[in-house]
């Protein structure tokens, strides 16, 4: 790692101030950033830890029936205390391994937007609102291609609000070596219709599968997806799965999610 200074503020306002310094970077749980620093792929002059800001940790349920999660809340806490939205708690409880879950955070996961990460699929499938120290961003406007987001330099995800669906399920096909999703699909049913978020599939990162949403809004059954296919063009391909395989897997995981959600 290159050398850097370290600050651990206790309020969002102080963190924002610290992040206004040249080449400052936020540190969430460090589960992605520390390995990146070790590889010298990042060179911040100051790291601003978000781990000691009480107003950024914890979970509550809003009057508008959303699960509101502080941006620095670790996955393990969502898994344990997110019972008001069981499918989201289940998603959090299957990220990586137990030690990744005690430190990795929802804000870090969304800010990083790894093309195989789990939370981005949930953000799209719920139509979540990402709240930062300066504004509110709809999930549909947040993700911007692999590892890209709408966040400005130094902007902090302080909270994420996930509208609680009537029925939902996240189905992750594990990539056992990395423990990320090889491909994962989240299906959420609301009074207004069904939303489907897909991760670990497209070269453009997480996306909503509009055809499946239309079919499932019409009939919430796995059979509604019969005959629907995704084009392999533009899908991720690696030694673990070719683009055609991933395209196929999206339908399989979407059907499993519908079946699980419907029970």
């Amino acid at each position, binding site marked *: 790692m290159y*050398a850097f200074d370290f600050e651990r503020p206790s309020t969002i306002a102080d963190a924002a101030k610290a992040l206004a310094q040249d080449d400052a970077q936020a540190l969430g749980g460090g589960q992605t950033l520390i390995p990146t620093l070790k590889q010298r792929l990042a060179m911040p002059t100051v790291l601003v830890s978000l781990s000691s800001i009480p107003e950024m940790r914890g979970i509550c349920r809003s009057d508008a029936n959303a699960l509101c999660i502080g941006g620095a809340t670790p996955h393990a806490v969502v898994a344990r205390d997110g019972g008001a939205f069981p499918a989201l708690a289940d998603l959090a409880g299957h990220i990586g391994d*137990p030690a990744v879950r005690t430190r990795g955070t929802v804000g870090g996961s969304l800010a990083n937007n790894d093309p195989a990460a789990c939370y981005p699929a949930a953000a799209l499938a719920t139509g979540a609102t990402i709240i930062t120290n300066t504004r509110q961003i709809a999930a549909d406007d947040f993700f911007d291609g692999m590892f890209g987001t709408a966040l400005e330099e130094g902007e902090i995800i302080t909270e994420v609000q996930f509208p609680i669906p009537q029925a939902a399920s996240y189905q992750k096909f594990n990539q056992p070596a990395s423990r990320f999703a090889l491909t994962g699909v989240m299906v959420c049913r609301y009074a207004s219709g069904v939303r489907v978020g897909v991760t670990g599939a497209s070269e453009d990162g997480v996306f909503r599968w509009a055809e499946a949403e239309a079919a499932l809004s019409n009939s919430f059954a796995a059979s509604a997806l019969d005959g629907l296919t995704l084009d392999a063009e533009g899908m991720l391909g690696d030694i673990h799965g070719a683009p055609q395989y991933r395209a196929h897997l999206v339908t399989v995981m979407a059907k499993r999610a519908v079946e699980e959600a419907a029970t």
Partner: protein
Amino acid sequence: MAQISITINGKSASAEVEGRTLLSEVLRDGLRLTGTHIGCDTSQCGACLVHVNGQLAKSCTMLALEADGAEVRTIEGMANDDGSLGDIQQAFQDHHGLQCGFCTPGMIMAATSLLRENPKPTEAEVRAYLEGNMCRCTGYHNIIKAIMAASGQDVTLAAH
């Protein structure tokens, strides 16, 4: 350089660290607690697991400054007060849950967390919890057996 204070296995200690110093480096190089192993240094293997304020953490993927003021427990703090092996450690010995022993400190720290959260896990739950712990020797079966035994469950049918 900055000074950090931690409680390590019940005793207070301090160390001089840089921003980039890892908790694993403080433990191994600073405090000479070399029972915490470094297998991969890339967050994959779990050999470096410790407890920070009672929570399982990869010490190779945590900055020392993040542990300032924390209570840290390592494998050196897992034996009984009289120096005899703790229950989980003893179960690893009884059930041949280790060969070279490189992964063992991390396995013991993970197993301790698991049994605290879930005192009577099923075999499947033990395997799932150890997802982040690699072992190159045992093939895992005897590790699973040892943890099931440490939880007071019958292991005659486990890990077959």
